[in-house]
Structures are given as structure tokens and as C-alpha cells.
């Protein structure tokens, strides 16, 4: 965390400038008997987007917001553009909406590939107690090159779609208030469609492989964030899976609907945000149940728990299998992995549906207007969960106030509880072991938290685990660069 001071010369000194690319730390607090009694996941980076956008013209917001994240810029583009659509009070052309959906699905696909293959597959291929020096994608490439190849190809496919539509893979500015800036060309449509069969096979193979190794992780399934909570996602009015538009649905641990078809624009009525002194990540909670009883989870696990159908053939088959895992809602966060792969299948199938839509090459892809409202809320399902962008502007169209509720914030309470559950189960001595450290990290990875927003200078995602005694003394500390 940085000390910030302002000199009389108006030079702002930030010292030290920490490499905030996904920096976080975990503290485990022990009781007098040396048992874990509390655990905290500290996010120590501060971005400040909500403040420094104030005063900017509203139409700059999608491009500015895309800079929040290098992995899911498209979700921020979509949520931001939808908020701006509300400011304009326009209905965007049908083809523009379909193109935005394609853009979003491509991003979910590449992001899920990153999460599953690049970040989590080392745990699954090499084991939770594997050699820490091999616990990375290089190690996966040695042990199971096919999984590594598939991870690279799947992510490449999603990114190439984004590049074809948006002109570049990261921070494309193709989605704009009122629609998209350019129509889809037939050349690009056909090129994307040509990659669908190979990609479907990759996802099918990965699902089969994952199911073949899943039983090796019975202990992790039992202890990785396996507790009752609420689940939240945007769904279609009929309860189907969607990433773009719909009402907010909340189900409880039994799988029963707590609230359905809530208006995303009214999120402050049912979502509260609490700030804890030990983290820059806000903790969201379901207001009617209060803090912290209103703990809920978002993202693939929540979407699969809530959706009664995906709307594509193969994903629906997998969803039925997912729902057979547990009679109630599926509670273990380990099953985020399965849910993520089902969504990858859905993305590929849905991409094909949208790309073969007869209107998809229409040239009418943008509506134009001046601002007609002073407040707008845009919401969508980002890879990691529900995303809200909320803007207020003045009569000149300048941003006056911004609030962002990001998926990782929704999951913050659940991630903290998950760490505690894993630590209580696996930490049995005062000394940390690599296997224990890896499991504490691995449960966080299941949520695929997006701490690593858009700063690329260092390229290191540091994780620090501290063991703290009853008097607050640091007994042990492990850092993973």
C-alpha cells in the first residue's frame, strides 16, 4: 500500500509505487492453540476509476472503462455502453445488440480459457501437492501437452474474434454508446465460423478430461468454499442463461428462488457495499439479509445454479449433469471449474447461432442521439459474474458520479469464507507447507478474481500468505512471485 503525499509544488508523490498487477495478500489468524480462527483476503491495489472519470464527457466512458481490465475489457465496454444507451435513451439496432453479444461471448470464452487452462490447470494436471517449481503452464506443457495446446488454442480463438471485430485484442473501442462502430464483414464472419468445429472439439475433450480427473479432488470438493450462500446472476425472463441482458435472479442454498427478474437499474435497492479497513475491494451483500448474512456468489457457479437452461444443445446436456451434482444448489466452489467449461461450450455454440443469423451482416449498427437522461445503469454478466456500471451526468453530458460493482466484489465475502474453510481444514501446524499454500491459492483461483486490472509493467501476480499468532505477531510468511 502506498503512502501518498502532496508537495507544495503540486507534485504528487506516491511512494512506493507498488506493482499492483493483481497484488493481494492473505492473512491467517491463529488462536492460542495454534488453530486457524480467521482468514482474510486483502486486495492492496487501488485503482480509483470511479473518481478520475468525474468531469469527463460521458461518451468517453466505454473506452475509459475498458482500461479497467486487460482480461475482461469487453464486459466493461458492454456495461458502460449500456449505461450510456440509457443516458441517450436510445434503442440500439437489433444487429448491434447481436454483435455486442458476439463480442461478449468471445471474451467470456478467452477469459474462461485463461482461468481454466493457464491458471488452474496446473493444480488439476500436476496435483495440489505437486512440485511448486513446476506448478505453472510450462509444467502442464511437459506433463500433458494436449491440455496446454488446447488452452492456447481456445484462448486464441476468443481473442481472434475480438481482434476481428474490434481491431485489437485488448481494449478495443468498437462498442460505443448507441451500438457498435462498424458492421461485421462477411470475410470476418466466415473466418470465425470456420473455427467453430475445432473449438467445439476442444471444449468437449476438456470436459471429458476434467470429469475423468475430478474424483481425485474429492477432499477439495468437500472443503473448497463448500458452504451455504445465496447465488446471483442476470437471467433471461424464462430463467435461461444470458451474458447480455435480463433481470437479476437470486437463489438460496437450497436452490429456491429468493428474488427474480429484479431490475438491474435498481441494484442499490438490493445490493449493499461495505468497505473494510483491510482491503480496497468492496464487499457486496444482499441488502434484505444484511451484512454479512447477505453473502452471495456470482459467476459461472451462480449462473449454472440459477439457469434452468442454456439454450444450446450440448451446453444443456452438461447443465443437466451439473444439476445432478447436488439436489440443492451446487455449493462447492471447486465446481466453478465445471461450470466454467459448460459456459465455454455454450459460448461456442451460441457464437455459431448468432453468426448464422440472417441479420448479422446488416449495416445498421448504431443509433445516434444527444443525452436525454442524467442517470444510467448498465449491467451484464462478465466472465466472473454480474457487472454494474452506474453513471450520473450533468446537462452538458459530463460525468458527475460513477459507481462500479464488479464481480470480484460480489464474491469478496465468499472468497474470504472459502479461504477460512480451506485453512481450517488443511493448516494443522504452525508451519506452512507448499501444499497448504497452494490450496489456499487454488480456492481463490476457482473464483477467478480479477485483481489484475490493466497494468502490465511488472507482469507478476504476487501472493503473500502470513501466519499470525494470537498476539498479532507474524509467525511465518510465504511469498509467491
Amino acid at each position, binding site marked *: 500500500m502506498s503512502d501518498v503525499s502532496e508537495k507544495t509544488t503540486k507534485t504528487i508523490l506516491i511512494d512506493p509505487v507498488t506493482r499492483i*498487477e*493483481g497484488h493481494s495478500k492473505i492473512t491467517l489468524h491463529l488462536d492460542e492453540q495454534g488453530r486457524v480462527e480467521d482468514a482474510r483476503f486483502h486486495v492492496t491495489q487501488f485503482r480509483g476509476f470511479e473518481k478520475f472519470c468525474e468531469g469527463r464527457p460521458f461518451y468517453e466512458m466505454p473506452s475509459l472503462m475498458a482500461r479497467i481490465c486487460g482480461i475482461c475489457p469487453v464486459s466493461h465496454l458492454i456495461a458502460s455502453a449500456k449505461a450510456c444507451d440509457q443516458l441517450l435513451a436510445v434503442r440500439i439496432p437489433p444487429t448491434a445488440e447481436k454483435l455486442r453479444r458476439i463480442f461478449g461471448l468471445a471474451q467470456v470464452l478467452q477469459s474462461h480459457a*485463461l482461468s481454466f487452462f*493457464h*491458471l488452474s490447470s*496446473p493444480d488439476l494436471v500436476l496435483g495440489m501437492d505437486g512440485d511448486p*517449481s513446476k*506448478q*505453472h*503452464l*510450462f509444467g502442464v*506443457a*511437459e506433463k500433458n*501437452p494436449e491440455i*496446454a*495446446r488446447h*488452452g*492456447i*488454442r481456445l*484462448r*486464441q480463438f476468443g*481473442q*481472434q474474434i475480438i*481482434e*476481428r471485430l474490434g*481491431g*485489437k485484442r*485488448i481494449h478495443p473501442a468498437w462498442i460505443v454508446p448507441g451500438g457498435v462502430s462498424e458492421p461485421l464483414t462477411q470475410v470476418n464472419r466466415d473466418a470465425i465460423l470456420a473455427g467453430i468445429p475445432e473449438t467445439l472439439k476442444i471444449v468437449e475433450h476438456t470436459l471429458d478430461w476434467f470429469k475423468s480427473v475430478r474424483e481425485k479432488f474429492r477432499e477439495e470438493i468437500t472443503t473448497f468454499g463448500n458452504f451455504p450462500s445465496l447465488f446471483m446472476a442476470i437471467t433471461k425472463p424464462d430463467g435461461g442463461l444470458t451474458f447480455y441482458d435480463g433481470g437479476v435472479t437470486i437463489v438460496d442454498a437450497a436452490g429456491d428462488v429468493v428474488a427474480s427478474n429484479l431490475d438491474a437499474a435498481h441494484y442499490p435497492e438490493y445490493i449493499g457495499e461495505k468497505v473494510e479497513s483491510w482491503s480496497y475491494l468492496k464487499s457486496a451483500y444482499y441488502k434484505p439479509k444484511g451484512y454479512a448474512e447477505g453473502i452471495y456468489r456470482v459467476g459461472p457457479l451462480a449462473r449454472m445454479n440459477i439457469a434452468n437452461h442454456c439454450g444450446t444443445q450440448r451446453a444443456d446436456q452438461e447443465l443437466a449433469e451439473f444439476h445432478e451434482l447436488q439436489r440443492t444448489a451446487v455449493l462447492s466452489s471447486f465446481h466453478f471449474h465445471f461450470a466454467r467449461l459448460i459456459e465455454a461450450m455454450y459460448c461456442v455454440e451460441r457464437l455459431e447461432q448468432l453468426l448464422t443469423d440472417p441479420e448479422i451482416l446488416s449495416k445498421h449498427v448504431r443509433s445516434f442521439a444527444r443525452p436525454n437522461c442524467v442517470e444510467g445503469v448498465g449491467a451484464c454478466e462478465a466472465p466472473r459474474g454480474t457487472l454494474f456500471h452506474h453513471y450520473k451526468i450533468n446537462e452538458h453530458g459530463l460525468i458527475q458520479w460513477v459507481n462500479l460493482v464488479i464481480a470480484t466484489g460480489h464474491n469478496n465475502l465468499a472468497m474470504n469464507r472459502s479461504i477460512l474453510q480451506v485453512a481450517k481444514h488443511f493448516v494443522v501446524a504452525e508451519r506452512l507447507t507448499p501444499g497448504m499454500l497452494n490450496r489456499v491459492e487454488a480456492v481463490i483461483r476457482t473464483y477467478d478474481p480479477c485483481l*489484475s486490472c490493466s497494468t*502490465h*509493467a*511488472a*507482469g*507478476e*501476480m*504476487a501472493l503473500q500468505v502470513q501466519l499470525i499468532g494470537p498476539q498479532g505477531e507474524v509467525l511465518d510468511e510465504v511469498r509467491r*512471485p
Partner: protein
Amino acid sequence: MSSVVGMARTLIVGYGNPLRSDDGFGWHAAQRLSACRPDSDVEVIARQQLTPDLAETASHFQLVIFIDAARDLSPGEVRCERIAAGGNPRPAETSGFSHFLTPASLLAWTAELYADLPEAYYISVGGESFAEGETISPTVQTAFEPVMAQVRALIIQK
């Protein structure tokens, strides 16, 4: 930016952060090369960083040339090295976030995963400023011509 991948013999990957002054030298070099490619047998890609998917891309080419900025050279100094793929990845490459990858490690993946090892070179240019900024320092700008000449020589030699 050229997109991947055809039957071209040579792939040029210029990379770096164009918002970090001289760090963006490779990115700018790729833009220039895209505008005046020596022939159609060359694909040029501009990237902010090397990513694992380029391992697959590289497997389609006979010659791969990487262009990047360097801190261990004098400003504007140009160095061209033949890349020997392999060796253990550097710690930052195994951090799990794939934001740091060396050309050698990338090509090691190409060899291991795609059974192909193109001839490869790494052209690096000493930077002067890596602060926020969208322009290349005047001293470092003088390296564009020698780099273009080096690229042409490597292609002709191949």
C-alpha cells in the same frame, strides 16, 4: 496490424508498450514494417507483450524475428542475437499470469507443443526513457533504420 496466419515464410513480432515511451520501440517498428513490408511473404504482428498463443503462430513460419526495447544497451544501440530455444523459464514467466514471456521460452513452447522450431532472431534496441509517453526518444529513433536494415538482411539471408 496483420493478422495471423498464412503460408508466409517470415514472421516479425514487434512488441512493447507504446504508452511507455521507448518501451514501445518494437511495437512502433512493427507498425512501420507493416506499412512497407519487404514482400508478401512476410507477416508482421505488433503486440504489447508476448503471449502463449504466439507459440502456435510461430509454428507456421520458417523464420521468426522479434523486435523489442532493452534496458541493458545504450540508447539507440542495436543488438541482434540468434535465439536458442529452451532452457528453464525465468521466474516471472512462471508466475501464472503470462504477462512476461521471453522469445526463447516462447519458441521452446513452439518446439515442445507443435514439434516445430523456426530459425529465430531477437533484435533489441537500447531505450532511454520508459516513462509514460507516446513518443520515442530522438536518440532511440535513430535505431529504426538500422533495425529495418537488419530485418531485411535476415530475410534475404534466409
